[in-house]
Every structure is written in structure tokens, then in C-alpha cells.
């Protein structure tokens, strides 16, 4: 257990923070806090996967919802993978089919959208889940940045 002063004196663990962004909780695991890392991973990845499950990969869209994506990108490469799946599979029509949607400008041709695209509350909730997963992972990797590593053999928290 560390108190606040000990944690302030702790050097910054940039490597742990980086790997915490690559995979949520990995920073804590690298520092020896295995159980803490796996629990954080469960929370963050659980939120993100629940969001994708509820709203589909259409919830993560770098081009149409850039502000939401800034928050979602905190989850790491998995957010970019979901965005790739959205633009590479759904928007190209490789999965599902492309259908015409009403154009915003009557003179412009009707834009094609995926039949898997949703505009219901499921999409909003899925987007919210993924964004909060990203923000929570920022909290988790900031924790990894300042957390004191566990010496091998001490046994503290390393279960």
C-alpha cells in the first residue's frame, strides 16, 4: 500500500502507460499488479465490447463522429480496429448491402449507407459505452503512469 507522498515521489512509468493504452490493464500487469490489471481490463474491455454488442461497429466512426471517436480512441487499437471494421466492411457493402438514404440536399445524389447502420437509441447507447470505456482507460493508464511497481516475491497484490 502506498500513501500519496510515496506516489508523488514515484517516477513516471511511460512504458507501462503506453502498454496500458495498447491493451487496457497491461500497464498494471507489467508493474506487478496482476490482479488489479486484469480487473481494470475486465472493466474497460467489458464496457467497449458491450457497446459494440448493443450498437454494432457502426458506433465507432472516426469520420462521422470524430468527437466521440477521440474519447473512444482511449481504449487503444481495439477502437481503431472497430473503426476499420465499420469503414472497411459496412461502408463498402462487403457485409450487408448499401441502400440509398434521403439526401440532405435534394439536388445531390442520394448517399449510400449500410443496411446495418442504425439510428435508434441502441446506436447512441453503444456509442456512449465505447466512449466511456475509452475515458476509463485513460484513468487506468494514468494510474499505471504513477503506480509503484511491486518487487518480485513481495506477494502484494500480485495474485
Amino acid at each position, binding site marked *: *500500500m*502506498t500513501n500519496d507522498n510515496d506516489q508523488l515521489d514515484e517516477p513516471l512509468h511511460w512504458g507501462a502507460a503506453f502498454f496500458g493504452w495498447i491493451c*487496457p*490493464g497491461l500497464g*498494471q500487469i507489467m508493474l506487478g499488479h496482476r*490482479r*488489479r*490489471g486484469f*480487473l*481494470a481490463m*475486465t*472493466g*474497460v474491455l*467489458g*464496457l467497449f*465490447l*458491450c457497446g*459494440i*454488442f*448493443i*450498437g*454494432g*461497429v*457502426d458506433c465507432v466512426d472516426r469520420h462521422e463522429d470524430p468527437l466521440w471517436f477521440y474519447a473512444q480512441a482511449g481504449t487503444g487499437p481495439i477502437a481503431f480496429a472497430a473503426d476499420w*471494421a465499420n469503414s472497411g*466492411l*459496412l461502408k463498402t457493402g462487403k*457485409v*450487408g448491402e448499401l441502400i440509398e438514404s434521403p439526401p440532405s440536399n435534394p439536388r445531390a445524389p442520394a448517399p449510400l449507407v449500410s443496411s*446495418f447502420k*442504425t439510428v*435508434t*437509441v*441502441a*446506436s447512441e*447507447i*453503444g456509442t*456512449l*459505452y465505447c466512449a*466511456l*470505456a475509452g475515458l*476509463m*482507460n485513460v*484513468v*487506468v493508464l494514468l*494510474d499505471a503512469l504513477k503506480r509503484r511497481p511491486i518487487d518480485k516475491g513481495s506477494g502484494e*497484490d500480485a495474485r
Partner: protein
Amino acid sequence: MIPSIVFSTPMLSWIPFLQPAGSLGNLWWLLMIPLIVGISIAYRATHDASIEQFWWRVFMFVMKSTLAMGSLALVMYLFVYWVIPILRTT
């Protein structure tokens, strides 16, 4: 009220994670509870100095957050359906 699960496509052709699973219709707000559970797991895993009694602390955090949001919703309901109509008549 009978909860109606609304799926955007028939179940047989549903592709998980690519297509939306749908919300719970009028009970969509129940999806806030798993949201709170996920947030509290990640928060408690990093915030507490010790992770003894972790799941009990997560449970208490979920209960407190749910009650707080429920209370806020109740206040908003009373404000919209009771206070505002009174203000309009006066």
C-alpha cells in the same frame, strides 16, 4: 407494461457485433446499470489502495450510483410534470 425487446433485424440473420443487438425498447434506461458496473470495476481497480473485498466495493458503488441517478431522474420527473405545469398556470 410488458418489456418488449426490439431487434432491428430478425434474430436468425443477426450478426453479433456487426449489427446492433437493439435496445430494450421503453426500458432502454436499464442499460445504464451494466454501464455503471463496467465503470465501477475499472474505477475501483485503480482507485483503491487495497483490492481486498473488491467485488463488495464494486457492488456498493453500483448501488450508490444507481440510487443517485434514480433520485436525479425522480427529481427531473417531478420538475417536468408537477412544477412546470404549476408555473404555466400562475
